[in-house]
Structure formats: C-alpha cells, structure tokens
C-alpha cells in the first residue's frame, strides 16, 4: 500500500509539475507509536524535573500526544487527515477513561476485601458480636435464599409470558399491551419495587413489616421483565420450519413448544435467566426496605427478615460505632462482603457465558 502510494505520487509529479499530486504522502504506520513514545518521554522528563506524580505524567503526555500527532499529520497529510487522527486519539481516550473506574473498583475491592477473608468470616454470623469479629455467613445464606426464591417466582412466569408473546399472542391487542408493560417494568427503579413490597405487606401485616419473601417478591418485579425480554428474543430465533415440521407430524401445539421450541432455545433462555439472577443478586434498595437487617442466620423466608450481602455492606458502611477500631472492623467487613458479592455476581456472569457457548452450536450455526 505504502510503496504503491509513493509510486503514483512520483509519476504524478514527474508527468505534470503544475498539477497538484493525486495522492499525498502518508505518515508511516508506526507514526502514532513513535509520537506516543516521544510525547510521554518528554512528559516524563518534565515530570521528573518538576516532581509531578504519575497522574500528571500521563495527562501531560496525553496532551502533548494529542497536539503532536495531528500537527505532524497536518504538515504531511493535510488538515482532514489531521482531524481524523485527532478524533481517533480522543475516541480511544474515552475508552481509557471508561476503563479507569472498572480497574479502580476491582483493585480497591480486592485490596481492601481480601484481608477480611478468614475461616471465621465464612463460618459464623454476627450474633453476639460487638464491633470486632464474627462473619457474614448469615448474609451469604440470606442472599442465596432470597435470590433463589425470586428466581423460582420469576423464571416460570417470565418464560411462560414470553411463550405467550411469541407463540400465542401473534401481535394481538393483549400481547401489544403486555410488551408495553414489560418495557415499563424494565424501567422501574429498584427502590420503587421495594416500596411496592413494603406497601403490600404493610397492608397485610401492619406497619414496618420485615419479611424475607417480600424481598424475593420485590426482586421478582425487577427480574421478570429481564427474563421475558431475553426469552422472547430467543424464541423468536427458533425457525418456523421446526414448528411446522412438528405440526405436520400431528404433534399438538403445547408438545411442540415444550419438546421442540423451548429445547432449541434453551441455551439462550438459561443464559438470559442467569444474567437476570446476577443482576438482582446485587440489588440493595428493595431488600433494605422489606427484608431488613438481621444479625443471625434465618433460613425460613416466610418468618421474619433476613440479612443479605448488599444490605450488610450498606449498613456496615453507614452505621456509627462506639470506638474507632469498631469502625475499622465494620469497614473491613463491608469490603470483604463486597468482594464476596462481586465474586458471586461475576461467577454468575461467567456461568451465563459458558452456558451460552456450550448450548449455542445446537441452535443452528
């Protein structure tokens, strides 16, 4: 490419010296890297001279790079190419900035959460603990139970509603209304879902109810639309030939759906459901309102409140303490729980991808 350009350039100029060349010279392919090295090298020299930190070095180097490469390009390639190079730098910069919080959060959570990990942390609860010590087993169990119950409520309802939309609704009035309502539900703020459960159980049980299953119901409100959406997408991907083939063999419609359509789309459905579980496992606001806080293990979702990891993080981070060392212990517990929660959520995300990859060859390609 480059030598071709050179050739046409030379022929154009030798043929008619008065005509402007048909092509312009280009920067070498390594130009961005060379300029980057020079920019940050220069910035490093200034930073050392003036005693700036790493942040100053990176920012000043970036500023030099942002000016230098387009300037070089402008001199050689012309203004339009220079603008293009500048925009390319800016666009990649947005990506670098977007990565910073992810790296910073992961790093901080690991750095501050890992010291909290111990056998006691995973095998005991907070009953009778004042300030220092104890574990978060009760919160891990609570998160597991509440999320499991929410999954048991949401996944069947979500899948059946998606089946109705794709297989039975066929764009009739009911299915259009339902699609619209699922859209509305997707946008419900999590705290409003919690208030719904709170209002519901206030009417049933009296003021300030604490009930773990209420938390599951609130999470279901958030989870159902995600399951409906993902299942709907997957069912739509199932080719109509499969359904018609089954009908031609005399298979009833419901057997067609349960034995042909759903198994074909199963990978996608499971992936969607797992991602939905991962999404609600970290929800805090609804559980704070209805499942409350508890210092000991409760395994019965129909009997009183239940501690969960997100709520534990929130309450440990915000509650006051009698002594400064208690605050340190509470924060360590909060960061430790945050690390456990992130491991659970990331594990579920990874599981979803693995399941999706494992099932996907069956669905056609």
């Amino acid at each position, binding site marked *: 490419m480059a030598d071709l350009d050179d050739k046409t350039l030379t022929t154009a100029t030798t043929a008619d010296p008065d005509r402007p060349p048909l092509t312009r010279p280009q920067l070498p392919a390594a130009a961005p890297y060379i300029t980057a090295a020079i920019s940050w090298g220069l910035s490093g020299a200034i930073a050392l001279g003036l005693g700036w930190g790493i942040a100053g070095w990176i920012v000043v180097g970036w500023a030099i790079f942002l000016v230098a490469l387009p300037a070089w390009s402008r001199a050689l390639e012309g203004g339009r190419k220079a*603008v*293009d190079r500048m925009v*390319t730098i800016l*666009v*990649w*910069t*947005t*990506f670098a900035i*977007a990565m910073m*919080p*992810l790296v*910073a*959060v992961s790093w*901080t959570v690991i750095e501050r959460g890992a010291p909290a990990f111990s056998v006691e942390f995973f095998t005991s609860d907070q009953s009778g603990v004042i300030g220092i010590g104890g574990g978060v087993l009760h919160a891990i169990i609570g998160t597991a139970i509440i999320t499991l119950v929410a999954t048991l409520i949401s996944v069947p*309802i*979500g*899948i*059946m*509603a998606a*089946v*109705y939309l794709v*297989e*039975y609704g066929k764009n009739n009035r009911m299915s259009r209304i339902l699609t619209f309502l*699922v859209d*509305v539900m997707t*946008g*419900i*703020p*999590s*705290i*409003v*879902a919690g*208030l*719904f459960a*709170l*209002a519901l159980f*206030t009417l049933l049980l009296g*003021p*300030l109810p604490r009930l773990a299953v209420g938390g599951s119901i609130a999470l279901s409100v958030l989870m159902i639309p995600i399951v409906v959406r993902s299942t709907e997408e997957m069912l739509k991907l199932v080719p109509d030939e499969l359904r018609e083939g*089954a*009908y031609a063999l005399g*298979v*009833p*419609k*419901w*057997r*067609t759906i*349960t034995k042909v359509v759903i198994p074909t789309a199963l990978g996608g459905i499971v992936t969607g459901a797992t991602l939905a579980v*991962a999404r609600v496992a*970290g929800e*805090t*606001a609804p559980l704070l*309102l209805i499942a409350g806080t508890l210092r000991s293990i409760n395994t019965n979702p129909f009997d009183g409140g239940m501690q969960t990891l*997100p709520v534990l*993080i*929130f309450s440990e*981070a*915000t509650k006051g303490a009698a002594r400064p060392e208690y605050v340190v212990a509470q924060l360590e517990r909060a*960061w430790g729980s945050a690390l456990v929660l992130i491991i659970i959520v990331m594990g579920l*995300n990874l599981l979803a991808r693995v399941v999706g990859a494992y099932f996907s060859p069956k669905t056609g390609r």
Partner: protein
Amino acid sequence: MSTTMTEPEKPAQATPPRRGGDAIFAGTAYGAGVLIMLALAGVAIFLLLESIPALSASGDQAYGADNIVVYIWPLIYGTILAAIIALIFATPLAIGVALIISHYAPRRIAKLLGYVIDLLAAVPSVVYGLWGRETLQGYVFPIYQWLSDNLGWIPLFDGPVTTGRTILTAGLVLAVMILPIITALCREIFAQTPQMHQEAALALGATRWEMIKMAVFPYSRSGVVSSVMLGLGRALGETMAVALVLSASGVITIDLVSSQNPSTIAANIALNYANASGTKANVLIFGGLVLFVVTFAVNFLGRWLAARGKVKE
C-alpha cells in the same frame, strides 16, 4: 381460549391438532401474561393507596416541612441534578466507547471490549457506592479544593470544600453506572448503520471520522437520544450509590462542591425508612410514587423516540 367451540365449523384449516393439554398450556401462558399485568397494576395501586395519607402530612410528620410539596421539591431537584451531572459525563464517553466497539477496534478485540464494558454493568450498585464513599471521594477532594480556590467565582464551584462526598461525586458514580447501559444501546445502533452508506462515504475519499460524521451519526441520531433517555431513567432511580456517597442536607443549590447538598428521592427513602413511623412512611412512599411517575415518563419518551427512529428506516 375457545379451543373446542369453533373446531367442527372449519375442518379444512391448517391448524395444529388440539388436545386438552393444549388448553391448559395456553391458559398457563396467558395466565403468566395476566400476572405480569396484575403485578404492575399492583405496584401502581399499592403506591397510590399508601401515599394518599401523605397528602395531608405536615410539620413533624412531613420531616419538618409545611406540606408534602415543600418537602418533595428539593428532593426532585436533587434527583434531576445528580442525573444530569451523570449524563454530562457519561454521554460523550459512552458514544466514544460505542464507536470504539462498532467502528474503531479490530473485530476480534471489539467483542472482548464489549464484554469488558458489560462487566462494568455487572458490578452491584452498593459496591460502587462503597467505592465512591471510601475511595473516590479522597481522589476528587483535592480537585474540588482547586476548583473552589481558582474557579470559585463560578456559582457551581462556590464551596467551601470540606468533603469529597458532594453531589458532583454522586453524579460521577452515577455516570460510571449508566455508562455501560448507554454504551450497549449506542453500539447496537451504530452497528445497524447500512454498510452501503459507510462504504460509499469511504469510496468518495472520506476519512474514517468524516465517514462517521456523514453516514453513522445522521442515521443513528434518534437512537442515541433514546439511549441517553433510557440511561437518564436509570440514573434517576439509582439509590444506593447516592445514599452512600452523598452527605445530604436537603437544600436547593447549584453549588456542586460544598458540603450542603440536595438529596435525591431514592437515597432519601433508603436513609429514612428505618425510623419512618406513622405518616412518615406514607410520605416516603409518596416520594417513591413521584419517582415512579418521573422515570416512567422519561423511559416512555426514550422508547417512543426509539420507535419513531425505527419507522424512518
């Protein structure tokens, strides 16, 4: 639902055979749909029922405000302010990152980068809140001091700066949280730009940026606006990040860096529910109802714009 009634009339119809199991299965699917409708109606009805007593609340029961409007107004202001700060930071970043994934990065890396951005969305909001409260506020504190010292004549940076836990920090954390949502929607839209338009632009000698300006942006304008609206809907309702980060005092101010900050509806509920007795609980639920209506309106507008944009193609 009339599975057997019309059967003998049209024997030649190419419908699948029907059995008893069919009626049950179809009924279950229909029932699931009805249940979703009931759940949503339940959300609206229970919130309405429980917020009626709040309309007459005043004085102590309305947390010291004369009436419910006086109480809720600063919270609405704070909610919108925090969300707008988040949008100002997140929108350009999200468009840039979406362009990276759809047009700049090599295809194989682009998919990986998409996963990485999705991981940002997977981090629970309470973890972002904890990070903002414990870590980020320490980073931004010197920057706020500098802003207040050097740009204090701008009302936004009036100060005095005594903490990093201001509405600006809350907005920054919200920006991180809505970034992956806007990015995911934008990159779908950018990727839908007709290949022919892009190749035509490149064939006419456009640089990559000119191609994006001429072919991609005009095509995706309404889609980008709608994804920003959906991001706004998320930012308005976000609770834990704001509740943990902000040290709120319920004032109306445009000063972004002082310790006097407006709170948001959602954060206010999370912080006050525990000792909300009597009508106070109703006042908080009324706040939730307002939030529900506002986010509904924003999301509706976003989806309407998206639908209108689709018709155009």
